[in-house]
């Protein structure tokens, strides 16, 4: 898998398999291509060469409409800056993907259950600017899960949070049973929750062996 933009090869010969229930962390410096990798996995972008297969479907050849459907049914995103919609309450933000045309049934019920599970019921009708950063990211997390996706992609999910809130969000990501989670970060602490930690540098993805011990230690968080 490789992406070339403006005569610059961002990812080169990258190969990555993520199993259901596995949490993979991708570490790397700013500008190393972490976010590009995430966008490719999430069907937001297309590679210039290579294949991406998600839940048995090859994304590479799919038209834009089919990619949108893939994102709707199979992918959940968690962004660094939450990207909650200002005009909607926390609950409405969570339920938004479930209410898009073509979404699988049961999304709203699942969304309310997630709000309950994440301890957000009391503040579900608040607008984003009335919420703390941690609360916003928990709503964002619930939104990412509302359509029951097989793959959750988290782009620097703790980048805008303090240590305590960051740890809580990481714990939630760790606890997503049965889903494949890919989180990109430049913080080793965040990578510590992963089953597998990879390092992206010079367009190449390699295993980062030195992080294995903390992973096992933090798995019980």
């Amino acid at each position: 898998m490789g992406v070339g933009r403006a005569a610059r090869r961002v990812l080169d010969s990258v190969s990555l398999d993520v199993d259901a229930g596995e949490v993979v962390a991708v570490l790397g410096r700013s500008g190393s291509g972490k976010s590009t990798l995430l966008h490719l996995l999430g069907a937001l972008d297309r590679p210039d060469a290579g294949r991406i297969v998600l839940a048995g479907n090859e994304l590479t050849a799919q038209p834009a409409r089919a990619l949108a459907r893939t994102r709707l049914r199979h992918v959940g995103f968690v962004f660094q800056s939450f990207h909650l919609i200002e005009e909607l309450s926390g609950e409405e933000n969570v339920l938004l993907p479930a209410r898009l045309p073509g979404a699988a049934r049961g999304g709203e019920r699942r969304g309310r259950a997630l709000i309950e599970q994440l301890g957000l019921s009391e503040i579900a009708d608040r607008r984003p600017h009335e919420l703390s950063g941690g609360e916003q990211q928990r709503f964002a997390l619930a939104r990412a899960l509302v359509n029951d996706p097989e793959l959750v992609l988290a782009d620097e999910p703790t980048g805008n949070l303090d240590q305590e809130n960051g740890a809580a969000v990481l714990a939630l990501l760790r606890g997503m049973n049965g889903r494949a989670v890919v989180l990109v970060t430049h913080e080793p602490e965040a990578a510590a929750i992963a089953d597998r930690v990879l390092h992206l540098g010079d367009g190449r993805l390699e295993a980062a062996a030195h992080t294995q011990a903390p992973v096992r230690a933090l798995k019980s968080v």
Partner: protein
Amino acid sequence: MRAAFVQAGYGLRLRRRRSLVTALGIALAAAMLAASLVVSDSLGRGFERATRAAGLADVIVRFDPEPAAIVSQRIQALPDIATFSLGQELTDLSVGADGHGSSQAALEVVGPGRRGYAIVAGRDLDNAPDQVVVERGLAAAWGIRLNSLIQIAGLPPQRVMGFSEAPDNVSYPLAVPRIYVSQATLAAQGVELGQSVNLAQIWLRDPRYLDEVLVQARATSYGLRGLQFVTRSGVRVLLDQAAGIVIDLLVALSLIALGTAGVMLAASARAEVQQRLAAIGVRRAVGASRAHLAATQALEALLVAAPAATIGTAAGTLATYGPTSRLLMMLNEPPAGVGLLAPLAAGWLASVAIPALAVAWPAWRAAGHPPVSLLRGAELRRRRRSSSPRGGPTLATPRPGLGRRWAPRARLALLGGRLAGARRARLVATATALGFSIGFVLLLLALASALSALETDPGALGKRYQLTASLPASAVAQVERIHGVQAAAPRYEDQAADAFSLGETIDVIAYPGDHTIFEAPPLTAGSRLRRPREAEVGAGLAEALGLAPGSTLAIELPSGTELRLRVSGIVSSLDHDGRVAYVPAAALLAADLSASEELAVRVRPGANLTAVSNALGAAAEPATTATGRGVPLVEVLRAILRAIAIVDGLVCVYALIQACALTVHERRRTVAVLRAFGAGAPAVRRLLTGAVVALVLPAAGLGILLERLVLGPALARLAVNYATLPLSAGLPEIAAVLAGLIVAGAVAVFWVARQATRESVILGLSGT
């Protein structure tokens, strides 16, 4: 300054598509402004130009033929006379040229001295015989060329030496054909009219003393009969009444178009500056001055506005100059020509300066913030206290009865509405501007319908008969036997004069029985005539003579007999400016047996009018409509109104596209988030549909109410105060405008959604 130019050019290249939308708005506003300037300047100052060119007399006096010496003596006795000229006007002459003809032409025999008309092509008359000058309007209508020949009854073929414009009256075909001939031509035929004149043109030293001169003229005109005075100011008032409506409409429309475009441009500029706050903050932080930043934005706007305003101004001018010049020709007024350059240049300047200021001002304000707050993404305005999330409709509450299939669509549209409503002040301003535009488009449609009805439908005048036949009253039974004829009756018409002042001419119409079977103009006061000595009078006549139900109408008929009738009611009639009277046939015929007679034929609903007309033979004629001789004027007015309506409609489309584009532009991240979670192009379209509906619904409501309650009635009063002109938009007009709005909204939604979904989701999320 060079740096500002470079940055402006860079910004322009970067925002090519948005600049195109902005340019479209500026071009439309400039087109509207130019159209308004062309029509209002041409019509508003046309009379002034025409009188200056023609040297129109301050007073034109018509009277029964008298020896020139006597008339000269009377005029010389008046005070403050600068000069005067005498002539003879012959009316109801047969003339013909190039296959056209008229039996109602007026031939003006001009004597020595000033002539009161301008030569706009060719040359004026000299002392040679067999030469004529014809009005430019007549020449255009009949295709008369210079040096061609024209036939005038009683004279040999006359050579056309020049075309004239005399602003004391409108031109053919609105009035009878007017031709000027010299006394030498008549002398060559042995006709000596010099001793018998019926027309005098008088120029005053100081026109401010006109009233005093008129008072004196009436007092010293003993011996002159049939006196009729026409003053320059009187002509102006009459012409202004017609042109004033068009000018008022145009000025209002152009203000609305400018307002709409201004609101959208200001909103767009503000959104643009809001998005560039961080960049502005960086520049401020590295030492760029506030003025430099504002100048850069203004320059960028200028680079967009200058070509757009040029195209718009040219388009607006081209669209309206032709129809306006045709209208001016009919009014006997010259086109504005190079005189338009100054106002058009001012309009162009405004079209360029306003967008530049609209951009520079928010940039100036933004640059006034501390760089630190700009870098943190400060808002241009102070953040409003958010309303309670519990208030108002929420996305979480599905509407009862909304099925699963429709619920997501409705919710997305609802979200779109909320996104549009988040900028409340702008939504109100845009909806108001759009509402005014809709109101005016409705008014134009209602006006066009009314004009069409007046032109083609006799029923618009309250006429219920469709045909007339030049047959005697004795043929009624025979006509009623024709298949498809519902009723027939003799219709008598006479032209009378007010017996007291003899100034007002009155169309007197009579039927032997109930006239409402054939003509039923709406009754506005009193009751229908029931008794032999009663009359219904038009509102125009009632106003002119101060009549009310119960008053006495005294009219002098052509036979010289005076007829006195009691006014039973006032009717709304457009015929003869409302100066009509319906009287019993017996009363009219007792006073004047020479009243013209024809049969009015009412056709059954659904019957074949052509078949009935054919059965009646050559005697049949379609019933006259309100516009009559004014059909060409109506056509020109319609062309002007159509051009304005099209530009106004385009302004509506622009406002909708810009509103959608702004919603997407400002909510770029929201759209990107939706797309990241799987929303495709249809979902984005639904979102935008909600934004458009939030704008269009209140605007349409406002527009409809505005037209029906304010604009329609106001224009109806302005147009004719002697009749009820239905200018309130009806269901067809409202349906047409709503359909147009749906189409415009759909165009806006599809276009903007296409642009939005073409953008990379990643770029949208990053907000760059």
